[in-house]
């Protein structure tokens, strides 16, 4: 039986690895990958709290399931936007994108 603190520690570390990547990287796709790490850290927390503290309910599990669905849709739209931005600016760095409409 693994104590719930271990899951909390793992999730906190993964979350801030994602935050670190989001702050330091300047490539759009790399920033999106960091956001995925953050989402996965939150999912671990939902599942662990559900199973270890409230084992009679299923709320955390369904929350995780819906987060997975929303994350897939979000990354598809973000990739569409990134490809469009690349067509327009010929670059995939956030620093080169300074105006939405030119």
């Amino acid at each position, binding site marked *: *039986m*693994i104590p*719930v*603190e*271990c*899951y*909390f*520690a*793992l999730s*906190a*570390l*993964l979350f*801030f*690895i*994602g*935050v*670190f*990547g989001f*702050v*330091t*990287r*300047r*490539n759009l*796709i*790399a920033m*999106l*990958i*960091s956001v*995925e*790490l953050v989402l*996965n850290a939150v999912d*671990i927390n939902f*599942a*662990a709290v559900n*199973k*270890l*503290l409230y084992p009679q*309910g*299923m*709320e955390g*599990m*369904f929350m*995780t*399931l*819906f987060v*997975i*669905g*929303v*994350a*897939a849709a*979000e990354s*598809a*739209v973000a*990739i*569409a936007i*990134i*490809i469009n931005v*690349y*067509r327009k600016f010929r670059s*995939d760095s956030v620093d080169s994108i300074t105006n939405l409409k030119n």
Partner: protein
Amino acid sequence: MGSIFVFIILAAVILIAGLLCVTTKRIMRAATYMLFVLFGVAGIYFLLGYTFLGAAQIAVYAGGVTMIYVFAIQLVSKQTLQGLVERIKCSRLISGGLAAFAGLAVVGFVIYKTVLTLNVPEAAPAIEEVSMDKIGEALVGSEKYQYVLPFEFISLFLLACIIGGLVVSRKEED
């Protein structure tokens, strides 16, 4: 007792792959390391007894989202496919590290202070997998603690995202 070793191995895989994912300079490698993180998280779900969740994680994230990223990397960086190297400024590295470390310190302090007040169930329940019947009934039932409304909402949301993705990424004919 065996599960603690599995947890340690999974945690090590997740954290090392995550660190390499945000520090590597090549985007393709970052996507590959993200795949390892996703598999590790799926392993955590299996360890917790959520086999359906682990299967969904592998099918949707590792199978779908990673493929989208690989396609995007190939489409975006055609010219510099092999050597897409990103320069990271040292000052940004330090400031990002400080921000992440400060956040981690705050969260760690909060966890340390509150984890003793949690009411963990005394009789530690044996981790057993949630049966597919219960998941299916809860997913499409409309009573209390059942989730037909978010289920329908997410189907509508996925439809909106398909249309939005097509509209955003189509070529303008002119």
